[in-house]
């Protein structure tokens, strides 16, 4: 399998993007902000289209749009925890902008069909060049390090914002910082592996980890492990099974992990209930 260069690139980018997604995904789930992550991946999509329509570097548009909107959503929401209605409204408008840029892009470059747009939406982890993969890995490692650097106060302010504020922690700044890192991860993951994989790797590993343990540090590790494991197993499956796209395989494994965690949790609850009787 590793004789093929595209598989090596996919594993390189996939591993580190999954690591970053798994780490930040745990916080995203703890804070109940999966919707925000979903919205940001679409923002990245719109930003890429805008850059394509304007003829500037796609990566620039992607990162600029995602970080700006992330900070905007953080600012609009109360206590830098944007509520779902704010996210939804911004999201809807961003989608509308996406339609606009898509039409501009298509009208502007005759002969181009929307495959660029589709690529952004679903990504092509198997079509990465060695340089792309290395860049994705470097950005993912940087984002993961930044996250781990603020992990302790962020955990505190995520779990109990009132007490954290009472202790003089900069809850609002932490929230914005968290959003900025999420934006970087979303932008990079969207263009390397697609919005689809991003959402799955944000929600499922974090959700599973939260169900499996109440200890946040263990949860972070489990979440990252599930994300990376799903990516490895998913890539392997899609290599072995011809018609299975990589994205679908990775999401499938991650979803199975989440379902297994929910089952385990339910069983545990039952055991506890019987024990208490």
């Amino acid at each position, binding site marked *: 399998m590793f004789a093929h260069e595209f598989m090596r690139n996919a594993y390189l980018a996939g591993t580190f993007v999954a690591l970053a997604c798994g780490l930040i995904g745990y916080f*995203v*789930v*703890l*804070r*109940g*902000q*999966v*919707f925000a*992550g*979903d919205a940001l991946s679409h923002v990245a999509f719109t930003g890429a289209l805008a850059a394509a329509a304007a003829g500037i570097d796609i990566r620039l548009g992607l990162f600029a749009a995602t970080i700006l909107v992330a900070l905007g959503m953080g600012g*609009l929401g*109360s206590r830098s925890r944007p*509520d*779902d*209605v704010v*996210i*939804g*409204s*911004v*999201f*809807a*408008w961003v*989608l*509308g*902008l*996406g*339609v*606009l840029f*898509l*039409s501009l892009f*298509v*009208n502007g470059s005759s002969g181009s*069909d*929307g*495959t660029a*747009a*589709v690529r952004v*939406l*679903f990504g092509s982890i198997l079509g990465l060049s060695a340089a792309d993969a290395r860049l994705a890995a470097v950005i993912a490692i940087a984002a993961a390090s930044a996250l781990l650097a603020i992990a302790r106060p962020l955990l505190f302010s995520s779990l109990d914002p009132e007490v954290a504020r009472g202790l003089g922690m900069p809850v609002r700044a932490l929230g914005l910082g968290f959003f900025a890192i999420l934006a970087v991860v979303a932008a990079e993951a969207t263009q390397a592996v697609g919005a*689809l994989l991003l*959402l*799955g790797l*944000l*929600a*499922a590993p*974090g*959700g599973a980890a*939260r*169900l499996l343990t109440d200890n946040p540090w263990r949860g972070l590790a489990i979440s990252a492990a599930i994300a990376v494991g799903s990516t490895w197993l998913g890539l392997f499956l899609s290599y072995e099974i011809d*018609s*299975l*796209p990589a*994205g*679908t395989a990775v*999401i*499938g494994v*991650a*979803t199975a992990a*989440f379902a297994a965690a*929910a089952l385990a949790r339910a069983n545990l609850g039952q055991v506890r209930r019987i024990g208490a009787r």
Partner: protein
Amino acid sequence: MRIELAGLSWDLVSDFEQLTTYPFMVQALEAGAIVAVMAGAIGWFMVLRRQTFAGHTLSVIAFPGAAGATLAGLPIALGYFGACGLGALALSLFGRGGREDGIAGESATIGTIQAFGLGLGFLFVVLYGGQLVGLESLLFGTFLGITAGQVQTLFWIAVAVLAVLAVIGRPLLFASVDPGVARAAGVPTRLLDLGFLLLLGAAVAATAQITGALLVFALLVTPPATAQQITARPGPGLALSVGLALAVTWLGLAVAYFSPYPVGFWVTSISFGLYVAVRAARHLYDTRGAGPALETA
């Protein structure tokens, strides 16, 4: 070979803009009115119940349904309704299943369901032979390519959805505003949750075929959110939400008719502009600390 998704290619948006034949506009306005009324009413409850993410997930799940139906050679409408129905069922079963699980668990579950649905859709598209171009029309729709027959079907679906909503409206309102008390009073909150998600799914499936999944979402969220910024009372709020959705849709269609830019852009931009303006006005009106009316709901 089927012509990809009944010719709803997004290239046609620009084609139709050049065509600008009047009957199309009439049908677009009619369909827009039906969609707006339905989305304005359902969306008001959706925003009240804080199920925006669930609503977005349902509108996205329409895509694997359509792709799956195309692959299996079934009518696309069946795929839309089947997928949205299944999605509503899954969201109701797993999403709010454990109430004590709180918002964190809910958000993770919905996200996973959506990602899994999209993954399936991607698989279907690949199996079908990679006709990915139809994807944009699925997501963004072609408002200006609506036939009279589609308008009629849409009308009857809207009547059915609104009738059911009218029947369950009162207990649903109770269950949405104070689920705990409602459950204690014997209101079947879980059944209502499922019923509401199914209604939402039906509305999304019916509309997504015509206006695209993303525009439905815009109409479901922004006008009701604007209305709830203005008033928290259910009656006027619902009326305002429907009125705003209708006005925004028609205005968007009209502006798009005279401009080179797509309907989806105008509808979402006008409604988002309104939302921001109302929020800003409210912010000026309220003294510091008074959040949105329903923040503590």
